């Protein structure tokens, strides 16, 4: 067992349970619970004049109906603005139940609690709400024009305006040899996990405690929110995260109205209450992301070196801003990618619209950023008639320049300093993988067959592992089994496996002896959550440190028992040994027994730790600076984020008649530092790329001008099936470790999705010879572009 499991494609320990139907997701729990159904606004913007529940009261099985009027104290206050920012001068959040006004179609107005969901929906359907419709503000253009306002007291619909810059971009552009302007747009998509949101709440009147299960990315966040809203002490609230059927960002934003009502109602009713979100509700009342418009001005020299970059963008944040400015701040900073423009200025407005709120979705502002920067690079190359790779290369930050200070403030309020990466090497790998230099031959051969193909590429740098901290607890049982807990949650990333790999190596135990629990506040109360590609970096590091603490103690206790020097000892396969002295060893479980001085022997093993058996009678059984038990607890809190990076390339074929786009090849080179489990790394990349393809070619939120989401179902929201994703994603890795954490690792959860729209836009543009400035693009869109392009060309000839 001296082989390191870190870096091995260890099979996932969670799989067997999930493969045999033993997974436990939120709605698999609480079969005895009452169910919630929600009355939601059909209007995007309206005043609620009256709510008549009379008809609902006849429904057999109805237990309660709640409207805003029932709420008191903190429950009647707006939901928290989770991440305040000085630039967010006009932050607004919704109420748990609408207080007189609704600002998006789907906003909760009343909640029904009934014996089951069928009955709850029967009752909800009978509640009559009288609305006074107000003018709708939908889309960035309408928000900017501000003919109408979403919130009466927010002038211009502007929630925030933020400028960051270094140097003098505008002046640099003025004097640059070449200049370009681009207008770009990216539409909305959404996380859309296969499992929606959900909350189950139980109130124990005898112990005066609230226990909540939630399909969440942050159990500690929800716990704190519930305690505050329900005026309970934190110790009286427990939040448990069962298996979670995907998150991708949307489950980080708590409290949702339904969380609060479920918990509040279960306490009032003294019965368990559950909310299980259905698919339609997920579309109209969870959260979306991505919608931004960019105006870019860039000045560059003859080689394509960017001398000045001035980016103005408008971010549609929906009706409320519970998650602050995280998404546009990430866009504005991560836009820089692997490049070092001499001067940079970025300014954004974060705008209110009468649509579902916007909070991070995997990538969180980076797909827009990559789209803006990579389209700019391609435009520079086109303007100069230079190779797209070469233009990027002259702009790359070089490895010798690391750590590289970008002179910006990142989403965590800390300096944007790249810690590691070798961008030229990553590019060299990508060129080789996709066959960049041989592509003209491919194109010619395709043309000969009457086929149209194109190639595109895109680069990104991703700040991962943002703070403030995560913690880990490693507890060694007297059986020798190791129990690990960390506070952040799991939605399919295989934490139970990768954290076990880390602990197995640190402690010297078989990986199958390590059991990991995540997202259970009973086991670990201090945590932030799972987002921003931070779990491996943050909890992985914390757990490694905790395991080191446990190991140090194990060696100390064993050294005492074996009368050896701890420095001469090691743990191999669960046994603490004196190096080079075969036979001088003690099982880790026994060390655990010895670590806890006992008065009572509960079993055979513990006899050896009772008071007449061990210990120096002249010393306290537990030393002054020690604790009983064989465990370690530690936290990891980095000074700033660590920056992973990657580059993707794709070859596409476009149908000359139908304008359908087919991805012939998709290649990824990624640098997340040392990989804990390459199988899981590749799985994360696969999933990210598929989501990226969805966002580039299929998915969008079709709002009409009245704020109605026209495609609020899987029938019309076109999440890709297998038939829409590339058949094969080719992956290569570069592993440049970060100096910022004990394992040298960088995050990767979001990586796959980030550059896909940029890459596919570039490839389609290359195939078609038509500038692609807006994504996603459907065959109909491409066909219309062709037509417009042809018309323009014809006019030009006239």
């Amino acid at each position: 067992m001296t082989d390191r499991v870190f870096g091995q494609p260890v099979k996932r320990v969670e799989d067997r349970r999930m493969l045999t139907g033993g997974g436990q997701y939120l709605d698999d729990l609480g079969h005895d619970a009452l169910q919630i159904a929600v009355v939601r606004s059909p209007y995007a913007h309206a005043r609620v004049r009256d709510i008549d529940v009379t008809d609902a009261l006849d429904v057999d099985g109805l237990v309660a109906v709640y409207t805003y009027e029932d709420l008191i104290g903190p429950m009647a206050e707006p939901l928290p603005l989770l991440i305040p920012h000085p630039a967010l001068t006009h932050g607004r959040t919704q109420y748990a139940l609408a207080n007189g006004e609704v600002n998006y179609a789907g906003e909760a107005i009343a909640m029904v609690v009934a014996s089951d969901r069928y009955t709850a929906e029967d009752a909800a359907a009978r509640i009559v709400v009288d609305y006074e419709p107000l003018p709708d503000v939908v889309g960035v253009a309408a928000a900017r024009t501000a003919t109408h306002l979403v919130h009466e007291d927010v002038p211009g619909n502007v929630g925030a305006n933020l400028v960051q810059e270094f140097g003098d971009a505008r002046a640099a552009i003025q004097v640059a040899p070449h200049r370009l302007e681009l207008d770009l747009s990216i539409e909305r998509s959404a996380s859309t996990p296969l499992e929606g949101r959900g909350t189950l709440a139980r109130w124990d009147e005898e112990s005066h405690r609230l226990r909540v299960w939630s399909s969440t990315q942050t159990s500690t966040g929800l716990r704190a929110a519930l305690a505050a809203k329900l005026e309970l002490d934190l110790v009286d609230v427990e939040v448990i995260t069962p298996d979670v059927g995907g998150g991708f960002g949307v489950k980080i934003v708590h409290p949702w109205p339904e969380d609060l009502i479920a918990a509040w109602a279960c306490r009032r009713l003294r019965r368990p209450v559950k909310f299980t979100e259905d698919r339609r509700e997920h579309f109209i009342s969870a959260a979306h992301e991505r919608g931004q418009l960019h105006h870019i001005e860039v000045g560059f020299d003859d080689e394509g070196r960017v001398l000045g970059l001035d980016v103005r963008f408008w971010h549609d944040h929906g009706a409320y801003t519970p998650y602050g400015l995280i998404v546009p701040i990430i866009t504005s900073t991560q836009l820089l990618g692997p490049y070092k423009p001499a001067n940079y200025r970025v300014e954004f407005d974060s705008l209110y619209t009468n649509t579902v709120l916007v909070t991070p979705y995997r990538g969180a502002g980076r797909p827009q950023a990559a789209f803006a920067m990579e389209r700019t690079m391609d435009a520079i190359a086109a303007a100069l008639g230079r190779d797209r790779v070469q233009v990027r290369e002259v702009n790359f930050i070089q490895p010798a320049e690391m750590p590289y200070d970008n002179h910006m403030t990142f989403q965590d309020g800390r300096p944007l300093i790249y810690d590691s990466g070798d961008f030229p090497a990553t590019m060299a790998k990508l060129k080789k993988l996709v066959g960049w230099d041989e592509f003209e031959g491919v194109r010619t051969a395709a043309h000969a067959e009457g086929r149209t193909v194109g190639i595109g590429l895109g680069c990104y740098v991703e700040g991962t592992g943002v703070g403030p901290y995560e913690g880990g607890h490693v507890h060694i049982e007297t059986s020798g089994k190791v129990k690990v807990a960390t506070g952040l949650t799991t939605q399919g990333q295989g934490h139970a496996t990768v954290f076990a790999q880390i602990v197995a190596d640190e402690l010297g135990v078989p990986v199958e002896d390590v059991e990991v629990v995540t997202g259970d506040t009973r086991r670990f109360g201090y945590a932030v959550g799972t987002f921003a590609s931070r779990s491996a970096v943050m909890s992985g590091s914390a757990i490694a440190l905790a395991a080191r603490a446990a190991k140090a103690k194990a060696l100390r206790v064993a050294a005492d028992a074996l009368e050896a020097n701890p420095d001469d000892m090691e743990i191999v396969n669960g046994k603490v040994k004196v190096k080079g002295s075969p036979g001088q060893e003690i099982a880790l479980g026994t060390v655990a027994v010895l670590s806890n001085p006992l008065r009572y022997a509960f079993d055979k093993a513990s006899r050896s730790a009772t008071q007449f058996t061990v210990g120096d009678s002249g010393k306290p059984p537990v030393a002054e600076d020690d604790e009983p038990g064989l465990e370690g607890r530690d936290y990891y809190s980095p000074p700033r984020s660590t920056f992973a990076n990657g580059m993707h390339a794709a070859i596409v074929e476009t149908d000359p008649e139908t304008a359908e786009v087919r991805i012939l090849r998709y290649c990824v080179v990624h640098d997340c530092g040392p990989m804990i489990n390459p199988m899981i790394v590749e799985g994360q990349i696969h999933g990210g790329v598929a989501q990226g393809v969805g966002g580039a070619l299929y998915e969008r939120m079709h709002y009409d001008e009245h704020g109605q989401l026209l495609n609020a179902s899987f029938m019309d929201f076109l999440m890709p099936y297998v038939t829409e994703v590339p058949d094969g994603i080719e992956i290569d890795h570069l592993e440049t470790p970060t100096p910022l954490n004990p394992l040298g690792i960088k995050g990767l959860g979001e990586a796959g999705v980030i550059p896909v729209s940029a890459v596919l836009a570039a490839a389609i543009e290359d195939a078609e010879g038509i500038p692609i400035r807006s994504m996603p693009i459907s065959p109909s869109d491409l066909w219309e572009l062709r037509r417009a392009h042809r018309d323009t060309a014809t006019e030009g000839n006239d």
Partner: protein
Amino acid sequence: MKPAPFEYHRPATVAEAVAVMAELGDTAKVLAGGQSLVPMLSMRLAAPDHLVDINRLAELDYVRVADGAVKVGALARHRDVERRAASAAQPLLGQALRLVAHPTIRNRGTTVGSIVHADPAGELTAVLAVLGGSVRLVSAGGERVVPAADFFLGPLESATRPDELAVEVSFPVAADGASSAFVEVARRHGDYAVCGVAAVVRRGSGKKAEARLALISVAATPLVLDVTMVANSDDALRAYVTGQVEPSGDIHASADYRRHLAGVLAVRAVREAQAA
């Protein structure tokens, strides 16, 4: 997303079924495969007082070739039609069915049900229309056979009256020398087509030669076009078809793109059928 309550009826024979339907009139809805109906019930877009489940009408569970037609009973699932001899007798059925949603849906969905559903994007409506098939409707008062040309009245609207049960659809078998194809463009594989074309061609000289199309998703009902006179020229065929359709735009495709596709797919369908 749970259905509103309804009263459930499960007749054992067609006679029982139509008797119940006569009594309930337009307060009842027939449940066959339910692959379109059940989502609408769950979304509470539809909330009939009664549901008449015909899944026990074993007498309607058949696919047979008789009298020059593939006759499909109301309980035959798409998969049955795909698998049984039907496809050999009328290859267009198989060509169309592989485009109807996904196999799991076809395991339960019925061919007759999807025709009665009269979705303007339904592949089978085009098959029935281009072949000039018919639907047999039975009520307590008797039965009638409605030809395809009279059956589709509008989007999601067929000639079936509330008291009538569509018991059988007849698809004429392929004529001698005839061949067919079904091509479509859908956003995702298995989605409703943005545009789709069923083509039946018959080789031969003079009056024997024939080329007919039925298009879906470009009109409220399947649009049948006789393209015999233009079938041999891509340009003429494309121009003729694009001139005949008046599609609407929606969130997935503009009207002009649909019109363009109709022409492109018409050519592809005819060429593919000719090559078959």
